[in-house]
Every structure is written in structure tokens, then in C-alpha cells.
């Protein structure tokens, strides 16, 4: 038999206030290399843009498009590549390395929609895929539109009068 429960504790009680503890825990977090992450994001993001530029050049030179005409099919090809990489389970691993580098280009937007669609396929085509596809991308569209509205207003007032 072990001894009966002690009435007085031989140990001190936790004396930290939540504020003190949060500061203490903050100190214990492993540092995140901001510079390293910026460099990785720049390199990967830049590489994605370089691939995009190469695709665009192909459309211009092989299919005799103007650069303006080439932009839509270029974006479509990038989206396709991103969707394929997402489906193969590669894009999320790239993102862990690249951070914003793979999130900011159009490929990141495609990844957010494709991953949500894949994830919720098990809940059916309507409520699953249809209802969840914009789960992450929806916020980008909403605030992209809101931002465009305010930029448009500013442009109207300060700029060329809507021209």
C-alpha cells in the first residue's frame, strides 16, 4: 500500500499568471527564419513565374498569339499544372518549403480550390465538392472584389475619371 494522500503538497503550485506564461511560452518557440523563408519564397515564387513566362512565350512564338492573347491560356496551363501537382500530393510538400512563394501565384489559388474539392469529394458532388470548393478561395474572391471596389473608387476620384 502506498502512503495516504498528502494534505499539504511538498511542491510549489504553478505561480505564473496567464500573461507571464504566454511570455514564457513565446520564448520557448523555435525561431522562424524570416530571411530564409523570404529567400525560399522568392526563389520558388519566381520560378513559378518564370515557368509562366516560358509558357506565355511558347504561345506567342509557336501559336502566333500577341502577349495579351497568350495571357489567358498561360494562366489556364498554370492552373492545370497546379491541379495535377495537388492531386499527386506534391503541391502541399512544395508549400511547406516555399511558404508564400507557392501561395501567392495563381497556382496557389488553384491549389486551394482543388485541395478542398478533393478533400470533400467523400461528402458528395453537391454538398461536398460544390459546397466546399470555395471554402478557402472564397475569402480571396470576397476581399479581392471588395479591394477592387475601393481601388476603383479611388481611381475614379483621384485618377483619370474612370477612363
Amino acid at each position, binding site marked *: 500500500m502506498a502512503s495516504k494522500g*498528502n494534505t499539504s503538497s511538498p511542491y510549489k503550485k504553478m505561480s505564473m499568471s496567464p500573461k507571464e506564461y504566454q511570455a514564457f511560452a513565446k520564448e520557448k*518557440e*523555435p525561431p522562424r527564419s524570416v530571411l530564409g523563408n523570404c529567400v525560399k519564397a522568392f526563389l520558388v515564387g519566381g520560378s513559378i513565374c518564370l515557368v509562366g513566362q516560358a509558357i506565355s512565350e511558347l504561345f506567342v512564338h509557336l501559336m502566333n498569339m500577341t502577349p495579351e492573347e497568350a495571357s489567358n491560356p498561360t494562366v489556364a496551363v498554370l492552373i492545370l499544372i497546379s491541379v495535377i501537382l495537388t492531386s499527386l500530393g506534391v503541391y502541399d510538400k512544395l508549400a*511547406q518549403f516555399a511558404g508564400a512563394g507557392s501561395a501567392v501565384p495563381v497556382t496557389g489559388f488553384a491549389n*486551394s480550390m482543388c*485541395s478542398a474539392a478533393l478533400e470533400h469529394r*467523400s461528402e458528395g458532388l453537391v454538398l461536398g465538392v460544390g459546397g466546399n470548393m470555395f471554402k478557402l478561395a472564397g475569402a480571396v474572391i470576397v476581399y479581392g472584389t471588395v479591394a477592387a471596389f475601393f481601388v476603383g473608387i479611388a481611381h475614379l476620384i483621384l485618377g483619370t475619371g474612370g477612363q
Partner: protein
Amino acid sequence: MLRGKQSWWFENKPVIIGAATVVGPDEGEGPLASEFDLVHPELDMQQKSWEKAERLLLEQASEFAIQNAKMDKSGINFYVGGDLMNQIISNSFAARSLGAPYLGVFGACSTSMESLAIASQLVDSGAATHVMAGTCSHNCTAEKQFRYPTEYGSQKPPTAQYTVTGAGAAIVASTGEGPVVECATIGKVVDLGITDPFNMGAAMAPAAVDTIQAHFNDTGRTPGDYDLIVTGDLAGVGHPIAKDLLMQNGVPMDHTEFNDCGLMVYDVEKQKVQAGGSGCGCSAVVTYGHLLKRIARGELKRVLVVATGALLSPLSFQQGESIPCIAHAVAIAAGKELSP
């Protein structure tokens, strides 16, 4: 019976007569691979959804546990289990297959020891002769429910943890051969205001400290009475914090080996798991797979498993609430001796 303020002392020495663990591919590449009953080579386990895969893990673990205990499933009086899914569906659906009277419990990742403590109490009090405790988690179901779609490209901070894909089940009986459950300490909810769901280790560390100290106060034991004390899933950030806090409070943790299941289940340096493992399955597969086998091999005489749980929901953290945490401790010892 009640010992101290919040501990149960099991006078009748309930025995773990059989246990089993089933894990996924990442755990199969970890250092404890050989300790698990079954390693699935693929995350989907040929199921149509992640949720079905998680349920399969638990169904297989309970099946193997029954086999390892050399009994029939009709001999299980009660099944006590829980998991991380909304409405603990993995356990409820697995209990449907099992067909035993079922008590669903939820303590997030502390469910492993919560269910084992309840199972032991049921057996010790004479309410049952054979009770199975089980829990499971799956990396992809947890990602899907708590974070983002599994294939979504977001960079996780180094404080984040990797949910273990695995299930563990143990059968506690009033008589038989095996390690003995000596006592359990039920934890209080502790919340020191951490709000970052990517730093659950730091959020849960104070709960582990609170339960460990309560355990020593209630039972009169000291860290030196244990060959090994493990926390459930504090991992690389939370575990050193817990150790610092305990040492600051004067608890001599240097008299024992103090480790964490989240650091044991993976090779944290080589596998890309950020700070380490987490999830209900984390402490379950390490305890039921690795630790019970070490006790059986005679390498450990007495261990204290302090399973830690973060009691948040996706809704609560989106609403800016802090993360309430809990820890439950269960002492498991070799043989049938109940020494001080």
C-alpha cells in the same frame, strides 16, 4: 477508491490482459515500427474516405486486442472509447461493429488515458470483469476537421505537430496475466490563455504539470518511483516547457526518465513532423505498443502515462477563444505487486 483529491487507487489490481496497435505509414517509418501489430503502407487504407480509414484502424486494433487477450468479443462487458472527430464518430461506428455496450468519452488527445482510467475503475469497482478501452486518430481526418484540406499548400510553423495515424486498444480485466493498472489521476481543465492552434504543446504543458503534481500529492509517490514518465503529445516545444515548470515547482523530474510520446513515435529530426506527434493515437500507440511491451520484456517496472488533450474546436479558435487543456495520468506496473 478515491485517493487524495482527484486520484483513483485500484485496490483490486485490474490487469491489462491484451492490447494492440495499428498505425499508418509515417509511424511505420518511425523508431517504434516493430512494436506495432499492424502497419498500413498507405494513408487511405483502401477506404473511400479518411473517416472510414480512421474507423478501420480502431476496428482492427480492437480485433487484435481481443485476439491478444485470447478471448472472444462477446466477453467484453463494456467498451470505453473516444476520438477527435465531431461526435466521436470513429468510436461510435467501431463500437457498432464490436457490438459491446459502449461508453463514448471525449478528452481530445487525453482520451487514451481517460478511457483506460475509466475502464480500470469499472473493473476495480466490480462493475465489470472485462472492459476494453480504445482510441484512434488519423492525420488526414484531423487536418480536414481542424485545419485545412490535406493537399492544401500552407506552411506549418515549427511549433505545429503532426497528428498520428494510429489506433490503440487495451482490455482491462479483473484477473489474468499482464501489466497492472495501479492508479489514475483525473486532470482539471487548465487554460493559461494560449490561442495559437499551431502551438498546442505550449498550451497543454501547464495541464500536464498540474496533473503530474496532483498525482504525486494524491498518491504520495515521487518521480523516482517511476522508471519512466511520459506525457502524451507535448512534443518538441511543450515537453521542455513542462519539464522546466515542474523543476521550477520543485518536482525532482531528474529522478526519473521524462519523455513524450510525440517525440518517441517519430524520428523528429528526419521525419517532417515539425515539433513531433500529436493526436489520440499518439499516446495510445506508444503506450499500448511500445511501453506495455517494454514492461513485458522486463525493461520497465512502473510507468506513468500522462496523456494530454487540447479541448478546442475549430469553431472556438476561429472565435478567438483560448485553448482549454487537460491531462489524465495512469500508472501501469509490471506483474501483480502493488508496492508503495
